[in-house]
């Protein structure tokens, strides 16, 4: 258990990928297979079945620590994390139980689920009494299901692959699907590489460079050498159809399994030995693309219900063909690949896999005008691709350009502040901003990021000395500070008092030169809304 606790704290203490990788490798190199299996499970985001409700946990912890429940809640506000609050609060014993991670999980945590309340309470008190703070914190994280330590499944895969000298895509394949965290399973991860190509193996993605909005497009050369498509705001994917199976990889090179059933179904119609590159988007049946906010309702859902699938259907807009009839065609020029792609998809009418249309133009100027309408299409701008370029690896210069529209910006007034959680507990870092509606300030966006550490300290001090009212953790402050906010999208929302919702709001800068009167109005924001869509 101590090794795993040390690993957790090592991962927690750094933001550097290399240091995380080293810590993971060191752990996997030395851990027993049974423990390493559980570690892999938790680090990849696996959770234990909920065994005790948060309410009971709070109650029992307060009892054990001999403090009233409200004081536990008060402490929770200061700490910002329930597992941490409880581990700090309860009284521990001097000795540490010597069990390994797998023994802890299998003999002490999992059995809590089926226990009668009084026994579970005893089990928990026993855990608290036989742990020191570091281990107790990790165990409470596992019990509350909030175990997160800033590593992705992909990073764990990389570490395992590197440590056991296995190709990363082979390791990713082995970690696919449902598996039981057993010693046998972990040993099977380590076995020497098998023969034969892996059907799931993706190609490296070709990534685009951003074209600076202020640069004249003429410097790219002749516009006939380029093709243009919408740049969508969805999930970039590689869809693989091989050996009668379908695999969908995200750009983070994460295998997304069972999350997009309609795409998987449509892909089953593709001939074997096909690999597509495209953007996964929420779209109506008539083909109209929905906003990212809609797609977000499905992101992060490991299982999708019927209702959600009906409300937010998704499509894959394919824009490149990398493999055809089992042959890697990435070396062909874009024009040839495009032709093949069009031919292939023309055989799949009414499918959830469609082709991303081209935007024809006779001059750069035409594209400049078309790009301005991106927002009304729920697109982020245009993609410009050289017609004669092959599909390159990584981020080559000069063949693919993303040409985004500028973000919206407004000046808004800070009216509420709340303490941050986790990394920023104890400082007022979460702000709500408002704009004017006649002589009233209407809140319309929350933003956390964008200020420097020094500015955060200054705002924190301002909040503390200009609090007018306190609502639980939220403080209303004298409306004095003006900040410039940028956001990527804006839409109508009946859930918000202001009637609008913004996408990715963030602080661009603190406008110390502006007074609250100078902030924008709700009218200004409404003017940015896309034209009302018929329901």
């Amino acid at each position, binding site marked *: 258990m101590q090794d795993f606790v040390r690993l957790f704290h090592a991962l927690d203490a750094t933001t550097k990928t290399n240091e995380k990788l080293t810590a993971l490798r060191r752990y996997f190199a030395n851990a027993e297979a049974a423990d390493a299996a559980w570690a892999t499970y938790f680090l990849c985001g696996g959770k234990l079945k909920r065994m005790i409700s948060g309410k009971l946990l709070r109650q029992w912890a307060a009892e054990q620590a001999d403090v*009233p429940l409200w*004081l536990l809640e*008060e402490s929770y506000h*200061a700490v910002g994390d329930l597992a941490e609050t409880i581990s*700090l609060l309860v009284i521990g014993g001097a000795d540490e139980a010597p069990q390994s991670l797998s023994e802890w999980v299998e003999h002490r945590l999992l059995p809590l689920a089926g226990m009668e309340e009084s026994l579970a309470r005893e089990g928990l008190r026993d855990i608290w009494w036989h742990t020191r703070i570091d281990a107790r*914190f990790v165990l409470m994280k596992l019990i509350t299901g909030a175990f997160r330590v800033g590593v992705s499944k992909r990073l764990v895969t990389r570490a395992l692959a590197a440590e056991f000298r296995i190709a990363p895509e082979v390791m990713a394949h082995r970690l696919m699907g449902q598996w039981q965290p057993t010693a046998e399973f972990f040993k099977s991860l380590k076995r020497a590489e098998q023969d034969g190509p892996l059907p799931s193996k993706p190609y490296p993605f070709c990534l685009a460079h951003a074209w600076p909005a202020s640069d004249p497009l003429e410097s790219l050369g002749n516009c006939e050498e380029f093709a243009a498509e919408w740049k969508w705001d969805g999930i970039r994917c590689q869809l693989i159809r091989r050996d009668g199976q379908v695999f969908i990889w995200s750009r983070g090179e994460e295998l997304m399994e069972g999350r997009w059933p309609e795409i998987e179904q449509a892909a089953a119609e593709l001939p074997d030995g096909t690999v597509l590159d495209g953007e996964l988007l929420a779209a109506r049946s008539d083909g109209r693309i929905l906003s990212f906010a809609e797609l977000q309702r499905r992101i992060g859902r490991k299982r999708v219900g019927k209702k959600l699938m009906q409300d937010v259907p998704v499509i894959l807009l394919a824009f490149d063909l990398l493999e055809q009839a089992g042959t890697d065609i990435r070396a062909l020029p874009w024009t040839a690949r495009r032709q093949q792609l069009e031919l292939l998809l023309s055989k799949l009418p009414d499918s959830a896999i469609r082709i991303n249309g081209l935007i024809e133009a006779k001059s750069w100027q035409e594209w400049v005008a078309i790009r301005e309408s991106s927002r009304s299409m729920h697109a982020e701008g245009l993609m410009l691709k050289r017609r004669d370029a092959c599909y390159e690896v990584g981020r080559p210069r000069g063949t693919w350009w993303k040409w985004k529209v500028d973000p919206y910006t407004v000046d808004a007034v800070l009216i509420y502040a709340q303490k941050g959680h986790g990394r920023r507990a*104890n400082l007022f870092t979460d702000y709500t901003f408002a704009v004017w509606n006649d002589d009233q300030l209407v809140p319309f966006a929350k933003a956390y990021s964008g200020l420097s550490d020094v500015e955060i300290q200054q705002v924190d001090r301002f909040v503390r000395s200009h609090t007018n009212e306190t609502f639980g953790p939220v403080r209303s402050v004298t409306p004095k500070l003006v900040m410039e906010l940028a956001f990527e999208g804006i839409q109508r929302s009946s859930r918000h008092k202001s009637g609008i919702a913004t996408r990715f709001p963030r602080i661009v800068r603190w406008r110390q030169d502006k007074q609250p009167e100078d902030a924008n109005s709700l009218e200004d924001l409404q003017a940015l809304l896309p034209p009302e869509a018929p329901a």
Partner: protein
Amino acid sequence: MVDNLLQLTPRGLYCELGGFYVDPYEPVERAIVTHAHSDHARPGCRKYLAALPSQHLLRLRLTEEAEFTFVDYGQSLDVGGVKVSFHPAGHILGSAQVRLEYRGRVEVVSGDYKLESDLTCKAWEPVVCHRLISECTFGLPVFRWPDSAVIAGEINQWWRAAAEEGKCCLLYGYAVGKSQRLLSLLDVSIGPIYTHGAVEKACQAYRVSGVSLPDTEYVGAVERRDTWAGALVLAVPSAHGTSWTRRFGNCTTAMASGWMMIRGTRRRRSMDRGFVISDHVDWPSLLRAITASRAESIWLMHGYTVAVARYLRELGKDALALGQRTFDGSEDAEYLT
């Protein structure tokens, strides 16, 4: 018997009978000062009264022409008919609890204090009173300090490991008090110790006051140094991430503060390590101190005042959270000065 010797006014705790303030927020005619931290010892007053061992530290902070009076711990002085005496608070060198007595009524202002041992200042002593006015910067039950000897071991181990890797250690803590306490815990056999200017000044004031500290060298006085590998530098937290730290080359950073108990603050500081070491009372010591004072009324200042007052009231005590100005328990305000 009079009910109240002290009352809270916009300028701070005021004793009308004696005509003086204790740790006023603004310049006043006559100030009694519990200790030399900037949120307690404000410049601009005409007369200051403080405990004798805080003399050199206070002079460092309050250089202007004012009238200073210092009395030793335990001795009393008559101020406008009120008997005033100072008692060790264990917070930093010269820190005191201020005891006021008038016709049998006794009130004590704790200032900042801690019950743990600290080689650089006199240990806290309980003072029996009718009313205790206590700080509660860390007045929540999640704050329970680990044994400082254990933390000292961790700091030295961190330093030793860094020295072996050829790194320099940057240890951040408040310039007055915290840095000297850290100094007293360091294992000087590991390597040389350097100081940031503000820390060095405070160290000198400690030495002049008769506190023996390990040798330190002011970073700014170092002519040339090819490598800082193996050295430990004591600096103020505001220096973190500034160009001042660049000279040390390959280094590892750590912060020493009670707030390091919380993962969020630890991570936000973006330092390699966080050591839980505080000069304030934690939850159990706060409760112990309140019991030891035998006070029938407790007023709370600085920190989680509302929570502590409510907790004490539920235990049947007479407790009140005093309103306060800008400081609400964030030691940040203090250690960033």
